[in-house]
């Protein structure tokens, strides 16, 4: 069994602020069934712009439930400016600490809060948006997210990065990339990451490049789990694909795998591509 503190066990067994607020001012939904934990956070502001109520629903282990409960307790009464400064470390500390391998539960809480605040301010989607370069394909973790957990928690090893945000915890193919990000972030280099090639492509060139990228970047990672993908068609900027094998049965495919494929294709081919799944 894990070494959970009494406070973790208390918040797991008697979670505070469970549920969903009707007509909320902000909603954040992060994680997925595939990743093993998911959190939906809703909050309501009072007249002074402070968080009057925050509620959660969580799918996950004991520490994921406890972290969500802790998050809602922490942010109640805060202004959004105060709330956006809450780090995953504060959530873990509120609970008297979490086992190292469970720190990603506290990061999940912080992410939900970020998304909910963005949702309130901009009206953008209540779901996490994959922005930038995806490093870990298994869990859909971007470079920016990895850099942030490294900075906020002063991490120095790949194992720690995996504990804090799951990156590298699946097939392990991205471990060299994470090592590099660790080096760069710790040296506080500020150079921008390599930009995607942005040349003008003819349709034939584009299809070739998409095929190459699928073969090199995407197919090997799907095949590791007994899945595959077929390129059906390219119409303008629309790339039509179909998942095969294990991927076809995976009911999270539409919102994680499609996003990962799209992000990869945008990175290596053209940044205006839209991936669509062929409906059979």
């Amino acid at each position, binding site marked *: 069994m894990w070494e959970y503190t009494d406070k973790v066990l208390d918040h*797991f067994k008697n979670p505070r602020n469970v549920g969903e607020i009707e007509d909320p001012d902000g909603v954040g939904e992060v994680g997925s069934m595939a990743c093993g934990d998911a959190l939906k956070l809703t909050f309501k502001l009072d007249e002074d712009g402070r968080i009057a109520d925050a509620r959660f629903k*969580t799918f996950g*282990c*004991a520490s994921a439930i406890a972290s969500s409960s802790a998050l809602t307790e922490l942010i109640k009464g805060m202004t959004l400016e105060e709330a956006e400064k809450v780090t995953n470390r504060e959530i873990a500390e509120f609970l008297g600490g979490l086992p190292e391998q469970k720190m990603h539960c506290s990061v999940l809480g912080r992410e939900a809060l970020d998304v909910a605040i963005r949702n309130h301010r901009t009206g953008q989607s209540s779901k996490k948006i994959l922005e930038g370069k995806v490093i870990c394909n*298994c869990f859909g973790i971007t470079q920016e997210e990895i850099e942030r957990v490294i900075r906020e928690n002063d991490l120095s090893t790949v194992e720690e990065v995996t504990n804090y945000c799951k990156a590298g915890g*699946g097939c392990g193919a991205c471990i060299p990339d994470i090592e590099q990000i660790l080096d760069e972030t710790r040296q506080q280099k500020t150079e921008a990451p390599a930009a995607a090639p942005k040349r003008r492509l003819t349709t034939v060139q584009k299809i070739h490049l998409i095929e190459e990228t699928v073969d090199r970047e995407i197919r090997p990672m799907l095949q590791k789990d007994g899945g595959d993908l077929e390129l059906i068609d390219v119409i303008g900027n629309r790339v039509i694909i179909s998942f095969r094998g294990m991927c076809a049965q995976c009911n999270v495919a539409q919102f994680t795998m499609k996003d990962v494929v799209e992000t990869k294709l945008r990175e290596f081919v053209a940044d205006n591509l839209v991936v669509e799944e062929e409906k059979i």
Partner: protein
Amino acid sequence: MDVYLDNNATTRVAPEVIEAMQPFFTELWGNPSSMHHFGGQVARYVEQAREKVAALLGASPEEILFTSCGTESNNTAVRGATETAGFEVPIITTRVEHPAVLEPCRHLGEQGYMVVKLNVDASGQIDVEELAETLSHGPAVVSIMWANNETGVVFPIERIAEIVKQAGGVFHTDAVQAVGKLPIDLSRTPIDMLSMSGHKLHAPKGIGALYIRKGTKIRPFLLGGHQEGGRRGGTENVPYIVGLGRACELAKDALDDEMTRVTALRDRLEAGLLERCPDSRINGDREHRLPNTSNISFQYIEGEAILYHLSDVGVAASSGSACTSGSLEPSHVIRAMGVPFTAAHGSIRFSLSRYNTEEQIDYVIEHVPPIVERLRKLSPFVNE
């Protein structure tokens, strides 16, 4: 009430086994190889234990090699047979084997051996025709488990053994979960090697055995001494060997009970839980399954959370969820079967033993549904 339903992980040591082992710590502590009476009087108990293990398996005593655990038995068999056969002979296994087989295979793959992993279908069964097809390219070392530790699914091992032998291959089976739970008769089944473990059948941890059919060539895994006919170096772990012998004797007597009463308890548990917990499902081939194992997915909730609540009411089980293993992905067995993620993370394995009672099972049937309901109230995937 304390209810232990995690017997595929480990079992309580039978009191009769402890009793049988006791003298080998206090009076009979000699080295069985020694040329004096301290050792000489001990050697014969080792041989008696060997006979008891052989009797449970339908083997000859000289075909039994004592090891330290099931993992050592599997490593010895898989690595020993493959390295003896040479680089041109591939190894065939399945995606749902225990890590004690998968990891040696991965290691051999890195060294340049060809490793083929057979898929399983949604019920966790392999396609025997696919195996036959794979073997049509030439002989191979084949390692396929008798019964799966997570789902209890039993493979058609007799049929598989025949196919492998017809193709001129070497066949090893990891029977750690099957021995003591299913009737096994190696005199009638052409299996070359079979692994078993003591602590899965009420002997202590730290003792296992490997059956090696007469004439099967394998390279020893532990080098260093003439013990076990030169097949495994290291002074015999006498008390534990005696314990394993006694446990096998008890298992042979209890086999009927296992096949009838324990099966009935398992079925009662399953029926009770499926009836009271909506959106739950059995993972694995219900027709061909160990008598003691039930793997149930409670959809939309996560396994570790279920286990902690269960532990609070005294019930011990295990889960294929990612969080319980410390890894980040759900069990490779459940994933290989294509169980949807909505159910994979919430899979709970209940594994019974002959020490369980009907009263205990009814207690579990009563206590699981409120836990499932409670966690579903928290789940964002359940609409109120």
